[in-house]
């Protein structure tokens, strides 16, 4: 697929990038981790200076980033069309909630629940990842629209099964979770998700994923193990959806099967395509813009669900690749993968030529 032209945003951020590139390399090496650490401290202390409402919005933004980035792995990087992401989210949410509400207290670990929360999330994520196999196996035989329908069916089946298990509340839902999700926790999980997904996408394996998107038969001919790639992608995406589900359950403290209907999946899809496929930066941006926009449109009440889809349709017509489809923020690309911008390359060549033409001391080169 061809890459769309440079976006407005990257032009706005150009001076910032220039400033960053003028830093000496050792400083540059540590800039991202330092910034992440600073943001973590801010997130940790955010409850003392951000009101509850905006904390909640931030948490939703984070959860949506995890959902969007993980769905982008399937829909954007592998080029399948999964419309059942909320199904995996539901599995993670229910498993994590059952652990923190029933299992841990029953084992006499009631007071340690806040510390065991990450473990509950992990187990929820793993359970969701396991169910990812349900989609992975049909994907060997079916592609495109039909696989989309399989994922849709999966979402409906999960919802229907949850509605029919009376022990976990059935259609009434499940409650009793403590409010364990905080801005700091969500922040940490977002960083973990983005970091792992970035490494996955830029690994050898990630190239296999991209090659399946471009042409599955050709990629299998150059000995990409397409089955292995598909299994891994679906399981990893489902895992992170499960984590997001666990976080979600422990912020709203009440889940019912309807929270994970096809509408939720549609929301995630919208964020993926709003941000742009094949881009983690796009997922972050898409999730943030969409979540905040819906909050800002809250005064419109019912009409915001009219305005939202309309915006989506307009976006698709005028910018079918989303905000930054197939492009990536520079800091999300591993250093050894970064491609020089044409301007920087030209500059380097010019300098080299000047240095050859006039062998003057290094300080004398023109700027």
């Amino acid at each position, binding site marked *: 697929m061809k890459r769309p032209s440079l976006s407005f945003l990257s032009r706005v951020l150009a001076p910032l990038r220039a400033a960053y590139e003028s830093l000496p390399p050792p400083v540059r090496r540590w800039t991202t981790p330092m910034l992440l650490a600073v943001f973590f401290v801010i997130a940790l202390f955010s409850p003392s200076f951000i009101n509850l409402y905006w904390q909640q919005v931030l948490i939703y933004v984070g959860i949506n980033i995890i959902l969007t980035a993980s769905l982008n792995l399937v829909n954007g990087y592998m080029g399948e069309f999964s419309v059942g992401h909320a199904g995996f989210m539901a599995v993670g949410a229910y498993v994590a909630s059952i652990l923190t509400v029933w299992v841990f207290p029953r084992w006499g670990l009631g007071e340690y629940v806040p510390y065991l929360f990450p473990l509950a999330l992990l187990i929820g994520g793993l359970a969701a990842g396991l169910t990812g196999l349900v989609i992975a196996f049909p994907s060997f035989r079916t592609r495109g629209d*039909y696989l*989309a329908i*399989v994922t849709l069916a999966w979402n409906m089946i999960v919802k*229907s099964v949850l509605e*029919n298990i009376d022990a976990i509340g059935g259609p009434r839902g499940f409650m009793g979770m403590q409010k364990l999700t905080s801005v700091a926790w969500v922040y940490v999980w977002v960083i973990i998700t983005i970091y792992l997904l970035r490494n996955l996408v830029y690994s050898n394996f990630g190239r296999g994923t991209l090659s399946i998107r471009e042409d599955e038969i050709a990629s299998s*001919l150059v000995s990409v193990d397409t089955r292995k790639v598909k299994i891994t992608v679906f399981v990893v995406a489902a895992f992170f959806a499960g984590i997001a589900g666990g976080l979600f359950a422990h912020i709203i403290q009440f889940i019912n099967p309807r929270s994970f209907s096809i509408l939720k999946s549609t929301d995630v*899809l919208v964020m993926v395509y709003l941000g742009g496929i094949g881009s983690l930066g796009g997922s972050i941006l898409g999730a943030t813009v969409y979540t905040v926009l819906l909050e800002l449109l809250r005064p419109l009440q019912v009409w915001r669900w009219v305005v939202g889809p309309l915006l989506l349709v307009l976006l698709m017509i005028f910018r079918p690749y989303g905000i930054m489809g197939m492009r990536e923020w520079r800091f999300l690309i591993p250093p050894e993968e970064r491609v020089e911008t044409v301007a920087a390359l030209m500059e380097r060549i010019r300098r080299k030529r000047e240095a050859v033409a006039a062998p003057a001391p290094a300080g004398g080169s023109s700027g």
Partner: protein
Amino acid sequence: MQTLVQQVLNALQLGSVYALIALGYTMVYGIITLINFAHGDIFMVSTYVAFFVGTALMSQLLRLPGIVVFVLTVLAAMFATALLAVLIERFAYKPLRQAPRVSAVITALGVGLFLENFTLATIGPDPRFLPKFFPVVTFTMGGVAFSNIQIIIIAVSAVVMLLLDTIVRRTMVGMAMRAVSWDKFTAPLMGVPVDRIISITFAIGASIAAIGGTLFGMVYTVDPYMGIRIGWWAFISAVVGGIGNIRGAMIGGYILGFVEIFTPVILPASTYRDFVAFSLLLVLLIFRPYGILGRPVAQKV
């Protein structure tokens, strides 16, 4: 035995409506390989049109006979929804014909959500009832009770489906449709006006859904969410039958009608309905990925 026959009748009634809506999904898919997720909501809009037109025409001032009102209502609903579908195609899907296919699907989802929430915001969530066009007459035959409405629904649907099958197989328009569906690059070279044929396909699909909508409204209530509820089931029907295949959609509609009616008979609760229907779909897609009548598309390197 009596309940069995009774349930078969109910299943045929529901299946007819599913089949009529499924036709719209399958025709659009067949011609531009787009899953038109907005189709269920177009069906929903059609029942609202039928509701308003029907209520207005049934007013005491006009004193029209019921059968005339029914026909006029169906025609009005067909015309309004055909127009809506053609407009949607023109302004939302046509600009995306060259874009990645997924963009068009997302747009369809967006249009569907828009229609649904627009109806919700302007008309409200309360369920409504279509006026009674005919006095309900219940016949009993060998212990099986059935009403004239049931007969009308099953008969009208059957006639419409036969008519559509004839149009697609025997007329010039139908031939053009099949040509575009067969090869959309060669068809224009043979003088087929592709854009017009696509518009006609949308119009026919939507007006058939409008017939289904009016029939549906005569038995069940009308609310903004029915587009999702009924639309999804119709969509599964289309896929089960083999999406893109018109006869497949008809068969699929009846299969889903039977699944919906017979699940509560066999399993303890009607809440298992969705589970059964979607599991059926999942299993079918795993073992026969192209539906009952669909043909696998050969992949070329």
